[in-house]
């Protein structure tokens, strides 16, 4: 159905006036692949812009870097607000706002020398961008970044600031499960609330925040566990001797569940590309589960077989009840 057909049907039902001005052509937004090209290029440009500012002004203290960050962020905000219809201005604004965020986080990292504090600040900063930045694409990206930063905050805060999978780390099953739920349960609940109350926020100005936030949260659920520690899935080397049991290794499996939940929500929203992302995310999480140290492969194979049989039984039950 096209917008014009829908408007005609709505007019026939008296929902809108018969002579109401039709929706301007081209309101469907960008297809996802155009966003990927623009987002990828904008992100890379922001890295170069950040390095350019860093080398040009040579901020020596966290305070100076913060000033540079705030100016870049404000410039990005201003450009977004002023040039809503210009593709060039939008790309420039994306690069500047991301460069500003990089600079602010650089200042926090330099000042605190703590990855946990930097990740926590990144969470707050990204959430602020989701609320304040006058651009849907920037909001979506920031929602994803906020979830990843939140994940790293909890991970570093509870189990130390190791970037890669630490083979000597020991974490019991209970804390590992509690940690994962602390990170992702609020995200999943947020998605559920937004999906269930979609009509309510679509009818208000809140849609300008809720729609991109929902897209970002779905992306984060689909890929978040993997993206917040992607290098662990590339641990092709294994340390000498038996690795101690570390149930953080079960996080990717929980990430699969989150990805499947994202797929279900995406289906409710008729968002086919997001379903594809969620399926790809689930497969990436299985790969990560294979490589993460902490639980032996035999135990992992039993877990996968048990999960598989459980899912098939659940499918049968759901089919019979439906």
């Amino acid at each position, binding site marked *: 159905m096209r917008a014009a057909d829908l*408007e005609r049907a709505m007019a026939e039902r008296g929902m809108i006036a018969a002579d109401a001005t039709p929706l301007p052509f081209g309101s469907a937004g960008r*297809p996802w692949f155009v966003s990927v090209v623009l987002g990828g290029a*904008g992100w890379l*440009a922001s890295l170069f812009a950040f390095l350019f500012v860093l080398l040009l002004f040579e901020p020596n203290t966290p305070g100076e870097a913060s000033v540079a960050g705030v100016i870049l962020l404000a410039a990005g905000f201003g450009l977004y607000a002023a040039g809503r219809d210009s*593709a060039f201005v939008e790309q420039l604004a994306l690069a500047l706002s991301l460069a500003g965020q990089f600079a602010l986080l650089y200042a926090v990292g330099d000042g605190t020398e703590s990855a946990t504090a930097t990740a926590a600040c990144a969470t707050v900063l990204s959430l602020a961008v989701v609320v304040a930045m006058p651009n849907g694409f920037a909001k979506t990206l920031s929602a994803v970044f906020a979830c990843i930063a939140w994940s790293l905050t909890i991970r570093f805060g509870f189990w130390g600031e190791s970037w890669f999978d630490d083979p000597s780390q020991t974490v019991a099953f209970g804390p590992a499960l509690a940690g994962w739920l602390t990170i992702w349960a609020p995200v999943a609940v947020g998605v559920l609330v937004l999906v269930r109350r979609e009509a309510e926020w679509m009818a208000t100005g809140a849609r300008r925040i809720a729609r991109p936030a929902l897209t970002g949260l779905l992306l984060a659920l689909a890929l978040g566990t993997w993206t917040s520690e992607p290098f662990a899935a590339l641990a092709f080397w294994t340390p000498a001797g038996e690795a101690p049991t570390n149930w953080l290794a079960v996080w990717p499996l929980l990430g699969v569940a989150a990805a499947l939940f994202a797929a279900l929500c995406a289906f409710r929203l008729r968002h086919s590309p997001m379903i594809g992302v969620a399926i790809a995310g689930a497969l990436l999480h299985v790969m990560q589960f294979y490589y993460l140290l902490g639980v032996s492969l035999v135990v992992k194979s039993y877990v996968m077989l048990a999960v598989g049989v459980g899912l098939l039984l659940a499918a049968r039950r759901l089919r019979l009840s439906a």
Partner: protein
Amino acid sequence: MNRNELDALAAHHGLRVDAVESMLAIAEARPKPADLARFGVRTLHLSGVLSVAAGVVFFVAANWIALAVFGRFALVQGVIVAAVALALWRPPPHPVGRYALLLAFVVSGALFALFGQTYQTGADVYELFLSWALLGSVFVVAAHWSVVWAAWTVVLNVALWLFFGARPETGVLWLAFSFWAQETSVSLIVPLLVNIGLWWVCVRLEHTSWASVAPGWLSRFVLACAVAFGTWSGMLVVLRQTEDIGFLGLLATLVVFVLVGWHTLRRRVDVFPLAAIEGSLILLSTTWIAQSIDHFDEVGYFFVLAAWLIVASTVSGHWLMKLVRAWDTPEARA
């Protein structure tokens, strides 16, 4: 209609909550409970089958000493025999047959791995994936299902990557290709062309009885693989990591991009191929500029790169959106 358009409609006409509910119902923007249940069952089935398959693969990889060689082979072959028996009992397009053949295809890879692990055949990893793609194709053809074809293309592309990209330089196949594949940038032309061939087949099947086997997403996936191999080949040339005939990699990539672009512009259906090519060209051109201006001072260097990326992506995005609006097909907008 996508959600952005519905949001715009709600905002444009200032709809209240009940009117938005009605609009979503008229536009069929929300699945019915029965559709949702069907999707849930399908998702659970697919994840269940893949989990069981992954369990078998993990088990073989664990090389568990408590189970003798005979037991390991019996286990893996038992799963394949059971899956084939299920597929014969309820042949595709019945879901049981399709899921069973998907399981058989994945587990056949574990069987090849187990064979190599047990008998120390000395086979390279690419040989495992290539054998898997070739011998497992029986299950793929029998399944007549896009999901199994997607799994097959993944396995084939891993084999191509391992052989033409990682260059094992062992095995009979390598002997056959070594005269041609002296430069990685040149050897990568083969996986580029293989994927372009698959994309072409997908496009040709669109209006035949095989259309369900080669849906749009699968054709986009193989094209993305082709563009990735082409970009890799071109990148090696731009980074000057080739000698002699190495430049042919970039040349072949550009020729293929032109042909794909020309075909896409003629069809006026899906903008995705052009977006993939644009993304690749932005990456290649940025790398080329980075190489060409490495004598600049660092400030100027990063300024030029940032400026180029912003300008190039703006022009690309503007052009792509113009095509999306002009063609206005479901494929162009999705």
